[in-house]
Each structure stands twice: as C-alpha cells, then as structure tokens.
C-alpha cells in the first residue's frame, strides 16, 4: 500500500468510478439543499449557503489534521507516500478553507450586514488559511522534494499542536472584547429535512476531496518517479 507504483495503479483504476460517484453525491446534496429543503424561518433562503459553507469548513480543518497525521508518519518512518500526500493535500485544504471564508463572508452580508466580523470562529479559520499558505510556501521553496516533504511535515505537526492553543486564545480574545452582536454558533436547531441534505453535502465534499487528492497524488508520483522503469512503461503504453 505504501509503495507509490502500487498506489498509482490502484488509484488509476478506481478514479474513473470514484470521481463520477463523488460528483453525483455532491450534486444530489446541493440540489436537494438549494432546491428542495425548506427555507429557514428566520434567515429565509440565504441560509442555503450552509450547504457549501459548513462542509468546506469541516474539510478545511480535517485536512489539516490529516496532514499532521501523515506528516508525523513522514517524519518517523520517512514514508515517501506520506510526504506526497502532504504536498497534494495542502493546496486542497487551502482551497476549502478559502471557500469557507468566502462563503462565510457572503453569508454574513445579508444576515449581519457586514462581510466580516472578528468572531472567534472566523478568526481561527483565517489563521488556519495562513497556516496552509505557510506550509505551501515552505515546501515550494525547497528544491529537494524529500527535504521539502519533511520540512512541511514538521511545520504541520507543530501547527496542529498549536492550533488548539490558537483557538483557545482566540476565544479568550473574543470574550475580552465586547461580546459579538451576532452569533453564528447558536443556529436554530435544524429540522431533519435541512439536516439530511447537509449530511449528504458533507459526505459529497469528503468524496470530492478524496478524488481530487488522488488526482494530485498521481501527478506527484509521476513527476517524482519519472526516471523509474515502471513510469516509462506506463507512459509508453498509454500514449
């Protein structure tokens, strides 16, 4: 499982199935959420942004956690694939966090009247985005791939230890200021016909993430193992 050629063949065989499935789950979830779920009694229809916002925020955080796990694997066992995972996952994590930030801002405008509030959650998501950018900047500045992997692993492991502290301190900082007039955390308890499409969206987002990740991993493997015989064979057979 840990060997790049094996993973590559496995991913290449599964992706043509997996990508359409994940796309259709996502589309079903979004159509259900945007088109058919009942509108919120307080916010009206604008709450439908939740079907993009919440899953991408969840993904943004859990990708970081995954990166830390694979980062420690890369540091301890020097597993090549773990390093490649890190490299492929970081831009995706940054993209999902960015989507969460943008959708949050667009949601904030009609409900709170502003694009941005220095709320604890928003702030820590913003910091998470900065952490992703730092990791991407770090590995792309190091020419040697293995070194870059390990440096990025190290910073993501250190980051995941610090992230709870950041969250905690941002909470404190929030209570220190006057309490926010708006509250995102206490959303109205959801009815099941809102909850199910959201659940499907979350699952669809995870699936999409996995298929995007496998695509990136395939590229990563091909470029790195360019000089090996199996890559040459693969390329010559395919072209």
């Amino acid at each position, binding site marked *: 499982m840990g060997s790049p050629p094996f993973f590559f063949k496995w991913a290449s065989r599964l992706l043509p199935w997996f990508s359409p499935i994940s796309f259709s789950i996502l589309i079903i979830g979004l159509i259900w959420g945007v088109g058919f779920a009942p509108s919120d009694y307080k916010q009206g229809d604008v709450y439908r942004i939740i079907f993009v916002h919440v899953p991408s925020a969840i993904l943004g955080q859990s990708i970081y956690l995954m990166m830390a796990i694979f980062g420690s694997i890369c*540091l301890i066992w020097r597993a090549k694939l773990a390093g490649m995972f890190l490299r492929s996952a970081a831009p995706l994590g940054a993209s999902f966090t960015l989507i969460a930030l943008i959708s949050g801002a667009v949601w904030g405008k009609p409900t709170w009247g502003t694009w941005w509030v220095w709320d604890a959650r928003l702030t820590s998501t913003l*910091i998470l985005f*900065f*952490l992703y*950018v*730092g*990791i991407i*900047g*770090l590995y792309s*500045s*190091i020419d040697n791939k293995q*070194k870059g992997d*390990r*440096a990025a692993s*190290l*910073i993501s*492991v*250190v*980051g995941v*230890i*610090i992230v709870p*502290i*950041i969250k*905690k*301190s*941002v909470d*404190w*900082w929030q209570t*220190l200021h006057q309490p926010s007039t708006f509250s995102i955390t206490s959303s109205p308890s959801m009815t099941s016909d809102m909850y199910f499409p959201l659940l499907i969206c979350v699952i669809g987002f995870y699936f999409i993430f996995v298929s995007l990740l496998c695509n990136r991993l395939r590229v990563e493997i091909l470029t790195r193992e360019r000089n090996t015989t199996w890559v040459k064979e693969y390329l010559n057979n395919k072209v």
Partner: protein
Amino acid sequence: MNNTSTLFSWFRLILKRDLALSFKKIATFLIPLVFFLIVISLFPLALGTENSFLSSLSPGVIWVAALLASLLAVESIFNEDFRDGTLDHFLLSGEPIFILVFAKVFAHWLVTGVPLLLASLISTFFLFLPEGVVLPLLISLLIGTLLLSLLGALGSALTIGKTAILSAVIVLPLSIPILILGVAIITSAINNQDYLSYLYFLGAMLAVGIPGLCLATVEAISINYD
C-alpha cells in the same frame, strides 16, 4: 559529571560567540530596538494624540511592535552561520545539536528580547500607560519574547538558505496566541482585573515550548542538512 560539564562549556562557547558577534556589529541589537521605538511612535502620528485613546490602544501597539522587531533579527540565527560554513562545523563537532539550538535561541533573546524590555519602558511614556501596568508589561514581554525567539529559531531553521520573509509567513500565524495573551495581560492590568491566569498560561506555554520547539528546531536543522 564530566559529560555535563562539557555540555555546559559547549553551551557557554556558543553563547559567548554569538554575543561577541552581535557586539561587533552594534546594528544587530540596536536596529530591532530602534525599529520597535519607531513603530511605536508611528501610531500616535497615524491615530492622533488623544491620551485615553492611545492608552487603550497601547497594549496592542506594544505587542505588534515587539513581534515585528523580534522577527526582524530572526534570519541571523542560523542563516549567517550557514552561509559561511560555521554551521557545518558546529553540526560536525560531535556535540549535541539541542544545546547548540538552545544556546543560539538564548543568545538571540539576550540580543533582541532584553533590549525590547528596556525600550518598552520608554514606550509606556509615549503611550501614557498607567504606572501599575509596568510590571505585568515587563513580565509578559519577558516570557513572550523568549517564546518568540523559540518560534523564530524554528522558522529560521526551516528556511535555512531561503529568504527571511518566508520564515515570517510561517512564524507569524503561530505566534498569534502569544500576541493575544500578551495583550490580554496588559489590558486586564489596565482595567484592574485579574491578569495572573493569562500570565500562568503564557508561562505554561513557555515551559512546553522550550523543550518542544527546541526539539522541532533540531529536527528542522537535520532535515535541511541531509
């Protein structure tokens, strides 16, 4: 016994060397200091000179200035020694790298952090801080600058041979808790509230950070070297 004494003399050698080196160039410890004071005096110029307004902003101003000033000198921790080959010699001396890292962080703190403490005394007049705040300000800066030096060393080790701005991008998000806690301590002190709990938390971060971040820095150096 003999072993610990060689470790200590190794520590002392690096520390003395780094301090001697920065005393050769007055700029290395004067520039962060002057930078700190300039940044602090920029705020009244930009935001107006009303006393109460300035003193309510002052905790944030002091901490942002301290953060930037301490980052300014971060590049010199490992990069200079890397460029002229001294880092090779230290790594090949057979002495533990942990001690090297610790000594270098300590030297960086003595050269940038301690002068900042003195400069922050001056800044209390600039920003009209009440007298009772001076002590919490100094203690929080003392711990905070040490943590910043530790984080800076990690960033510097990860970006050996790269531009300094990259290490700033990596280190700054990680240093947000220090900023928030430092500001919280001063603000609570100004409002006569209990600031000790924040201070304890900052102290706990230091207690975990010294071994943790030093180990991470050692790992970062070994990554950049093999």
